[in-house]
């Protein structure tokens, strides 16, 4: 650890580090600013999802039966598979950051590509799930179809389901685009032990997206499965 610090400092104090922007004094300051900024951004994301989570929790308490019924119609296999895929992609992302920290460009690229593939798999499964819902009429709105006695409240569940997973998927797509850019930069050898902040920042974002899913999965797929 101390070794790495010394290393970073050695570069940081060089007057013209190629990646040092003019308004920062040191690489250290620049990196701290980026990390801090990224975390503040994630803080806004927590509150962003917090609002809709509250809506979910409230209606789940009010219309538990409807939520349990609708939740049982979701495909647990696909949801579970996606959970494994996404947590797996977090692992590969963590390895990508680790490779960047140790200065292995090829490792970084490899792990980043793997992360992107896993992200794409997740989205592919999501497409399958969504299209199934369109087929059976589980999309809320005028064409909603349900024979359950709680059809009206099931619409609330599905509205939240689509909004939450949809927003999550948008975050994934954005994440994959960023990953693609970062991968290209890594392939061009722009990162090394002393400068790999973009990889770390992307990692934070990706883990956050994973984290949202960690809540979405039990809340949406596992309301009540025992009967």
């Amino acid at each position: 650890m101390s070794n790495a610090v010394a290393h970073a400092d050695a570069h940081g104090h060089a007057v013209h580090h190629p990646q040092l922007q003019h308004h920062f004094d040191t690489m250290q300051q620049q990196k701290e600013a980026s990390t801090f900024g990224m975390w503040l951004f994630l803080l806004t994301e927590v509150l962003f999802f917090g609002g809709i989570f509250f809506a979910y929790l409230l209606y789940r308490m009010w219309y538990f039966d409807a939520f349990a019924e609708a939740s049982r119609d979701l495909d647990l296999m696909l949801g579970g598979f996606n959970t494994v895929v996404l947590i797996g992609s977090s692992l590969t992302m963590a390895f990508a950051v680790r490779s960047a920290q140790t200065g292995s460009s090829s490792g970084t690229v490899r792990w980043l590509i793997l992360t992107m593939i896993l992200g794409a798999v997740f989205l592919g499964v999501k497409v399958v799930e969504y299209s199934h819902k369109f087929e059976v009429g589980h999309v809320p709105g005028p064409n909603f179809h349900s024979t359950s006695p709680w059809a009206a409240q099931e619409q609330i569940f599905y509205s939240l389901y689509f909004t939450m997973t949809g927003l999550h998927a948008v975050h994934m797509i954005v994440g994959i685009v960023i990953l693609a850019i970062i991968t290209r930069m890594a392939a061009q050898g722009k990162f090394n032990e002393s400068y790999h902040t973009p990889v770390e920042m992307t990692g934070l974002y990706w883990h956050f997206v994973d984290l949202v899913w960690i809540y979405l999965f039990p809340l949406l797929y596992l309301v009540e499965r025992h009967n």
Partner: protein
Amino acid sequence: MLDTLKLPEHHYLNDGYGLKSWLLTKDHKRIAMMYLISISIMFALGGFFAAGVRLELMTPQGDLFLADTYNKFFTMHGVVMVFFFLIPSTPAVLGNFLIPPMIGAKDLAFPRINLLSLYIFWLGAAFFFYALFSGGVDTGWTFYTPFSSFSSNTNVIPVALGVFISGFSSILTGLNFIVTIHRMRAPGLTWFKLPLFVWAHYATSLIQVLGTPVVAITIIMVFVERAFGFGIFDPVRGGDPVLFQHLFWFYSHPAVYIMIVPALGVMSELISTFTRKTIFGYSFVAFSSLAIAVFGFIVWAHHMFVAGISPYSALVFSFLSFSVAIPSAVKVFNWTATLWKGSISFEPPMLYAYGFMGLFLVGGLTGLFLATLGTDIHLHDTYFVVAHFHYIMVGGAIMGYIGGIHFWWPKMTGRMYSEFGARMSAILVFVGFNLTFFPQFILGYMGMPRRYHAYPDEFQVLNIMSSAGAGVLGIGYLLPVIYLTYSLTRGKAAGPNPWGASGLEWQTQSPPVTANFTEPPVVPAEPYEYTPHVAREANLV
């Protein structure tokens, strides 16, 4: 003597010419100037809608516009003024321009994100303009469901998206400020040496970062209801419209502090400078900004006392609402105490500061009527509320913003404006403002509901007073446009520190160079140090 001053040879305004040098700039000062122009246009647009509203209300019958047109006018007045003028106003213009030099930095922490926030703001505004030119919107700026989701037949979606998008601009600005204030301060500039303007912007940024995402998700939920027929707040499917109000006000109440707290920061600078004296109770004023920011988040349901919320939670929210009154009162008392044994002069910015204090005082005190449950039931959604929040948002936030513009205009452009014009403007705004909005308190207690196109005859006299005042107010706002524009080419050179102020931003030339400082600024031992020497230099050189 002043005639001998010349503008410096190199500064940020002549560091490159042409559209590209502006649109691709990373200089926080140029971005601030572009924000200034953008929000000034939005302010004029919002003012146009306000003029329409006031014209209509001169007669009780509602005979000038159709009801639908009137509803669009007040809605777009609210949307433009709140989301496209007030929220960006002081932070995006003055904060953007001044925070880096005030803390001795070359730029904000993320210059590209700063530019991005401006583009996002423009994109949001473009959505709004699209909605405007394709027929407008009539939901009220609050977008209450189910009206906005299922009843209104106007362009709710583009406006909602415009607000959603511009919210990101606000988040990015706040995020940038927080990181900048934490990480970019000049060596030796500790937290308790920071100008109170910076403290206020720190508090504001916290609100922007914490609150805006919640309104963003709320807008998304309305969007999916309206666009796809989803049902989240839809009472027909068991949804609760009151939940929308909770989520909306979780942001929109603190949003009031996004507007007013930066103006409070401006006030501290003005009052200190024109009394040549440090702010009385510096740390109390600094922490009161943070207290307002934090308490602002726990009081939102006082907008909902008659909305069908539980009376027990109304009780709690009423109690908490008074907690915001205390730090606000502390600020006013401290400013007043600052005047004691000062060396007070009444340059135009100080006139604005005095006006601000008077209006903010009225705005703050009338908030008590709305935090108190017994009176709020009667006053809720009447003109009393309209008057109250205009005292805070126009009398407070805009007065502070324009006062700040007058104070830092010499720094931003290097030139002085017509002091006579500025004095006239300050007085007209103060008089016109009171004439416009004071009658509305009485109207409100008389029971006149807000958002009324036509109204019973007995309210007419007070409404005519209000409309007449709005005319005066309009002239008061128009004047600065004239003399400030004139000063851009004809104004006398201001010199680095025309007011004898103490902040680091006055240590550099006016207008500053792109990197703000040609030599590192000297951080004083104490905040707001005035020595006879500095003052003499300012007045005589």
